């Protein structure tokens, strides 16, 4: 007979039959398999911790999003936001579904080109664009989204020198009725800055205005904001047509769609508050179709949504390192996934799931990462079951930003796996090795 698992003794207030505030009992959800692969087997084969990305999930999410928009507006184009996750394999999945690329640095630009995207399918955003970056973008015909007047002057000079016409779009920040208002990117609409810049672009010999762009913020749960922003951009396009007889090619409404992750401090769980793609699409396209844009010459609708397309497809797999009791009596569990590989833990109250439950009992627990650093907290307080050292845990919905904002801090970065549509596992990024990392360094002669 197999020895039963040890269950440590806990003291819990008796609240048998007491429902939570939604009338339901709190039950810890478990996740034992990802795309038919057991979490245990994955950890056994590839070590702990490890990232897993599901290709079927990416494709399904992309198609749902695309369908939501393309069944409401005739011309829709997604551009994959590289900064959200620029694993080449991930980018290529999006590109194979038809997405273009949205990059914010020369590095990302090179990645996009490497992934087979042509220059004129690249949206070049961001406050920093070097001379070399801009020259390449002008030559390739990329869509350069201007962020400031200084950039406008700089780009103008470069384009003149190259004797080429740069494809330019204006990044606009506007009041869409939500807080906070991001006014640090681009030109403000309400104070006239945007029109000031537009007039200059239109008169510039070496610039061709191809689009208008706004990106209001991130994790926006108010769909009405998109309707307001779309309406304002459409009006600008109509006015440009009247004033300069110039039809722009696209309106870029940016991204910022929320996901089912719960923000810290949110009252309701993200799964309940997150609008669907249909909700966003409904508001946004209704505003465009209801505008004065001519129905036979509608501009292309560009969307740079990143987070909402990839978050759901990513998982962080790890294991329990130790259990502790803190001085105030709270329980603490240390796991091998820290903020070094889960940067989003700073703003999300990530769900942490065991792979199986030995009992229904849970305890108020703080989950710490493995770093020798006080800030390394994954969850401040969570009703968590009693796990033991070595037990596997899964953190779902971590596909966005974690594989780009990760840190080489204390530990090396873990490997990234991809489960393809045939449920085959591929290592799409190797585990970083000491040798590779050390090879970057140079010790001056006198210290050798």
């Amino acid at each position, binding site marked *: 007979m197999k020895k039963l698992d040890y269950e440590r003794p806990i003291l819990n207030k008796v609240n048998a039959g007491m429902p939570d505030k939604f009338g339901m009992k709190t039950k810890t959800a478990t996740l034992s398999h990802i795309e038919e692969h057991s979490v245990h087997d994955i950890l056994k084969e590839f070590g702990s911790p490890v990232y897993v990305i599901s290709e079927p999930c990416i494709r399904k999410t992309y198609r749902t999003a695309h369908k939501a928009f393309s069944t409401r507006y005739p011309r829709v184009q997604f551009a994959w936001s590289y900064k959200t996750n620029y694993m080449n394999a991930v980018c290529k999945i999006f590109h194979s579904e038809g997405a273009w690329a949205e990059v914010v640095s020369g590095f990302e630009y090179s990645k996009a080109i490497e992934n087979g995207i*042509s220059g004129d399918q690249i949206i070049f955003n961001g406050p920093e664009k070097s001379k070399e970056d801009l020259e390449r973008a002008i030559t390739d015909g990329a869509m350069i989204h201007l962020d400031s007047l200084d950039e406008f002057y700089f780009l103008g000079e470069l384009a003149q020198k190259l004797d080429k016409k740069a494809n330019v779009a204006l990044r606009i920040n506007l009041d869409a009725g939500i807080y906070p208002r991001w006014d640090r990117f681009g030109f403000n609409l309400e104070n006239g800055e945007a029109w000031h810049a537009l007039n200059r672009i239109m008169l510039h010999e070496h610039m061709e205005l*191809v689009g208008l762009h706004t990106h209001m913020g991130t994790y926006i749960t108010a769909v009405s904001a998109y309707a307001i922003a779309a309406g304002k951009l459409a009006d600008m396009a109509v006015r440009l047509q009247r004033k300069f007889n110039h039809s722009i090619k696209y309106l870029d409404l940016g991204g910022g769609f929320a996901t089912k992750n719960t923000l810290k401090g949110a009252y309701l769980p993200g799964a309940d508050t997150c609008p669907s793609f249909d909700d966003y699409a*409904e508001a946004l396209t209704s505003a465009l*179709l209801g505008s004065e844009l001519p129905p036979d010459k509608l501009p292309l609708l560009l969307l740079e949504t990143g987070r909402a397309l990839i978050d759901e497809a990513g998982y962080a797999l790890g294991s329990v390192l130790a259990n502790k009791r803190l001085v105030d009596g709270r329980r603490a569990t240390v796991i091998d996934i820290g903020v070094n590989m889960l940067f989003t833990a700073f703003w999300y109250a990530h769900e942490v799931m065991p792979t199986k439950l030995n009992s229904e009992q849970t305890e108020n627990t703080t989950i710490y990462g493995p770093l020798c650093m006080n800030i390394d907290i994954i969850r401040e307080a969570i009703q968590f079951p009693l796990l033991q050292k070595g037990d596997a845990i899964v953190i779902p919905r971590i596909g966005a930003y974690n594989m780009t904002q990760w840190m080489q801090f204390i530990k090396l970065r873990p490997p990234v796996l991809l489960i393809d549509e045939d449920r085959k596992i591929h290592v799409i990024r190797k585990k970083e090795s000491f040798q590779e990392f050390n090879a970057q360094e140079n010790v001056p002669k006198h210290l050798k």
Partner: protein
Amino acid sequence: MKELKQNILFLGEATLNSYAQVFFSRNKAFAVLLLVVSFFDPWAGTAGLISILTANLVAGKMGFSTYYIKDGSYGFNSLLVGLGIGLYFQPGLEIAVLVILSSILTLFICLFLQGVLAKYALPFLSVPFLLGIWMIMLASSDLTSLGISERGIYQANELFSLGGQKLVNVYHFIQNWEIHESVSIFLKSLGAIFFQSNWLAGLLILIGLLFYSRIAFTFAILGFYVAYFFYILIDVNISELGYTFIGFNFILTSIALGAFYLIPSPYTYLWIILLLPIVVLATLSSMHWFAPYRLSVYALPFNLVTLLFLYILKLRYQPSVKLQEVQVQHNSPEKNLYYFKSNAQRLSANVVADFQLPFIGEWSVTQAHDGEYTHKNEWRHAWDFSMLNDQDEQYKNDGDFVEDYYCYNRTILCPADGEIVNILDGIPDNKIGQVNLDQNWGNSLVIRHNHSLFSQLSHFKEGSFKVKKGDLVKKGEVLGLCGNSGRSPYPHLHFQFQATPYIGSATLDVTLPHYIERLDKDVILKSYAKPPTNTKLLRGEIHPLLSQTLGFQAGQKFTLTVESGLDSKLVILEKDWDFEVKSDAIGNTYIQCLQTNSKAFFSVEANVLQFHNYLGNKRSLLYYLYLSCYKVYLGYYQDLNVIAEIPPNQVFRARKLFLQDFIAPFYIYLQSNYQLKYQNKKEGINSEKIELSSKIECGYLNKREHLTSEIKIESGASLQIKIIRNGKLIEIKCGNMQAY
């Protein structure tokens, strides 16, 4: 000098056409043959030629339409009069003057009749000839001093003067053949059209006729023999047919009504069998009217019956599809027939030409015409549309609320340009499963597309209309949102065409011009059809690049350059080809090749470029553009399949068509199928590339590839087509189709 050359060429063509026109043809070879036949009697032939030249020159100098002069329309009646005079009188200068005068008179009668009959869209046939020749013949008793000819009576003499003893021997040799009396009468009757009384002329004309048109050839024989057997049936003396100018009436009537002015079909064959006895009766009676004046009736019965029948056909209250008048005259029964067959659907379809489905994305037909729920009786020609998910369900969750339905709250677009003539709002959405029978159309509007065609869209969401009564709306404009008002148990869009502007008018049976249908993974273009229940429909969005490059507009000019593969067998050796898009007097648009004057007729409607017809030189580059882009959907859908049938006369050589032509009114077995596939699209903001491939397969049972082409369209409206024909590659290119 160049002008002189042009004038001579013009006159030459007009003259030849005048000969061919006697048999409704414009075939030059046939014309030359007829010219030769007319010169069997050199003097009569000369008189005929003088007549034609006179008529055409006078018409030209007086400033009449060069089109009709070139066409031979003004010349052929004068030709016949000239031939008649030339044969009746002895040669002489006075007669030449007489010929010129009578030719001018005949021309005037022509012009007069053209003016009168044009109003009724009727041809003047050979009525001018009749009036002209009768006038001369009535005067002939006063003109005897000019010398009545005896030619035509002694055939051997004539033949001797033509070809000496040899020809006479041949003639006697053939004369001794045992040919049936009817054959001899038939051939003589054919010859009589050119005032020849020997059957050798008839035989030559018959060969020419066969060369010109197989259908006309069969009708010539059919017409004659129906009359012949009717003569036997009513027991009238047939032999007089042999030496009077009468038999050709049956032949000409049969060709005119069976093949030329009507689309040849099994029904025209039946009609000819019915009509020819009537021509016989008309002939017999009219001969008696003219007997006192010692005049022949010539072609009177033919003119009488043909005009009578053509005119009454136009008065039909409900023209039958079985007996179709020729709308676009190609001067060849075969061409008329093939053109008609390939365009019948388009021409007969009752459609709003530039129509697109009123929604975005993919919707399904939940109830079609003669539906099982509500599309019955007066309202049977309507469609209900709703949106489905991948599992073919209309709703998510349990479907208990209108919001669960995918189509609910969706934008409804204007299907075609028009005016909002009626609108009804203020009816709330029903709960799922309930219907509002008091206001059963729900929130609805009616759009007037033209004076007699309206469309009604119903069951909108309350207060969602973006238009108001009296608004002029364009295709694609937002009308409102899909709702669940009126007799609507679950959200859907009701759509119908009607003839009156009221909400709830009786429906009209109208087809949709073009729409895209999805069958599992295949996307196909349907034309002139009515989608049945459960069809998955896509509105079909235009792709700016495709419409810019292939959406030809009148006034546009472009140049195609042959990059490689110039082969004189396929294309005239010329590198740069200029084209201009034009439209004719009745609004048909066509592309004209400026080098060869070839024309390719086309239309761009409901996002579809469709060629209808090609006229002219088949070694022009335009011909290859016509074949490779025969039907193109101007939007891009991956793996979209466009199929069409190209009329056989545009693809097959005359040799192959020869047999087909005979039975074409009954069955067309030679088929050429056109297929266009949407292969690839690469899009950037400034550079787009679309790759299409088309092929034409033709044959009877085992089809073989006739032509394949790869069409590459890049931003800047640049067009590149690689055509493979007979194993040879032709590459053509245009840097910018919109350059002008």
